């Protein structure tokens, strides 16, 4: 079973981000980067499917800055077989990313393409479906359960609290929702072995963007909370505040 997994280098989800001086990007000083968590689940699931099949390969693909080699090496350390890196330093919207991924993937053999449901930076949740459309493949997004039976994948996802089960012809694009797999820690043996695995750098045309980032701003700071004592005077001040300040009474 040959699986391609698309991954993205994103700012660590525990980072407190600052908007850079240009008002259109994140200040990257001192920021840590990780593989997007849903992409990590997709890598894990791919490794599990390959190992269950007992044959095949897992290829990780990224479109992103040169530094994203680190995230590819992490995927290789987890157990992926090889990696392809289309180096693009500039920020890309989802259309451009899907178009670039298509260029990288075209001509390669695969039975299945896995992506995270969304990267945790811009949260578009669009690259997976756009890639499927570009490749003319079926797509099931937000999948939390996946098995493969011959040339059919059985994908499960949650819809209105119910589980929807879909049969989908392979090859297909599946995007990973929480629950699909729990990413393993890359062990030291895997890390040491990752260095020797193939990591190919390719060119791509990254100009297919249909959105442009106009500006970024942090959400407004929340006002301090007001504590009201459970006394008659406190209740009076609450009523006054609701009537005059909030105008809800």
């Amino acid at each position, binding site marked *: 079973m040959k699986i391609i997994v698309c991954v993205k280098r994103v700012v660590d989800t525990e980072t407190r981000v600052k908007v850079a001086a240009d008002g259109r990007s994140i200040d990257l000083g001192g920021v840590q980067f990780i593989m997007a968590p849903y992409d990590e689940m997709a890598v894990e699931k791919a490794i599990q499917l390959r190992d269950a099949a007992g044959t095949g390969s897992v290829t990780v693909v990224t479109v992103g800055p040169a530094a994203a*080699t680190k995230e590819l090496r992490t995927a290789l350390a987890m157990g992926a077989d090889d990696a392809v890196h289309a180096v693009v330093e500039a920020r890309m919207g989802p259309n451009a990313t899907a178009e670039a991924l298509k260029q990288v993937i075209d001509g390669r053999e695969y039975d299945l393409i896995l992506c995270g449901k969304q990267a945790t930076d811009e949260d578009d949740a669009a690259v997976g479906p756009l890639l499927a459309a570009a490749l003319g493949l079926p797509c099931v997004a937000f999948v939390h359960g996946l098995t493969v039976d011959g040339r059919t994948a059985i994908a499960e996802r949650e819809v209105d609290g119910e589980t929807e089960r879909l049969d989908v012809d392979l090859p297909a694009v599946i995007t990973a929702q929480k629950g699909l797999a729990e990413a393993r*820690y890359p062990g030291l043996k895997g*890390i040491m072995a990752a260095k020797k695995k193939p990591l190919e750098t390719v060119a791509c045309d990254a100009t297919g963007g249909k959105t442009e980032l106009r500006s970024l701003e942090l959400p407004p700071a929340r006002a301090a909370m007001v504590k009201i004592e459970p006394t008659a005077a406190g209740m009076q001040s609450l009523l006054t505040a609701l009537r005059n300040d909030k105008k809800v009474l």
Partner: protein
Amino acid sequence: MAKYEAPDFFDLDSLLTEEERMVRDAVRDWVSDRFMPVVEKAYSEGYFPKDLIPELAELGVLGGNLDYADFPRLGPVAYGLVMQELERGDSGLRSFVSVQGALVMFPIWRYGSDEQKARWLPALHSGEAVGCFGLTEPDHGSDPGGMETKAVRDGDGFVLNGAKMWITNGNMAQVAVVWAKLDGVIHGFVVPTDAPGFTVREQRGKHSLRASVTSELIFQDVRLPASAILPGAKGLGGPLSCLNQARYGIAWGVVGAAMAVYDEVRQYGLTRIQFGKPIASFQLYQAKLVESLTEITKAQLMNLRMGRLKEAGGVTPYHVSMAKRNACHHALEIARTGRDMLGANGVAGEYQTMRHMCNLESVKTYEGTHDIHTLILGRQITGLDAFGAA
């Protein structure tokens, strides 16, 4: 608990290989996710969280630097960073891994027969077996050459008698590397802990390294086959070479403990408000932070240089003595100062600084006390031996 922010003031990160950074980050993440949630309970109740051993093995840290079979074969700097990250969690965790790797697997790997290696190295690497190292005795700590534990020849094999004390992992171990005198010369023996006549007693009541098992080993007419002796080790050099491996790891490890303390007190100082402002805005608090960060940075630099020397084959036991001595001394001072900076909260289990402080008292003492390393270095510098037998 706030996310750990490791201090790296001189951007030593950029001097590491990508692989070394990945190894460090893998262990750092594991410690944050899996070890930090359980350490306070383990420490206060006085046990080692044994159920994490399979995960440590899966991670590959047990003997991960040894050139054997399909082990990860970490380089010296990557290995040091593993120790640093483990001890950021707790000195007991690093001690467990140090003993298993540097004091049990290393001598079997370096001095053992092929049969001993095949029997024990894979099992110790996979965590199926735990090992301990018996050198120190109740009456011989800094002076291991005076040991009283004795092996005598008996037919094809040996009979072992004596006692060892302060033995990390003793009660969890399936195998012990025991150093004993045979015809007056120190030799190593690989002894299964279920051998008849071998008793292990846990040493309770420690005020330090409480998340680590410490035991007494007692040998009463323990019969060993000829195959139990480590064929390649003869004299005090054998156990000292093991200690040199372990001390290398300690030098890195205690810097991890100091980094944890520094991070905790820095974050505390920024959020703790007194007199209407964060206590980190006071000059005394800032001075302490600066002293701590400076000493951490110096020790990090010394460790990295020591690691690169080791890589190139140029490290000596004297480099390791200096790094161990210096790092332990400053880590303990940083932890004591940090405890003070946390005020009353500093004695509460919710904060990790006092746990590190108590641990570091042991780490400064074991594997060559501060004063013994001073004398080792003094002898090296002057050529005059200040502590040789009278």
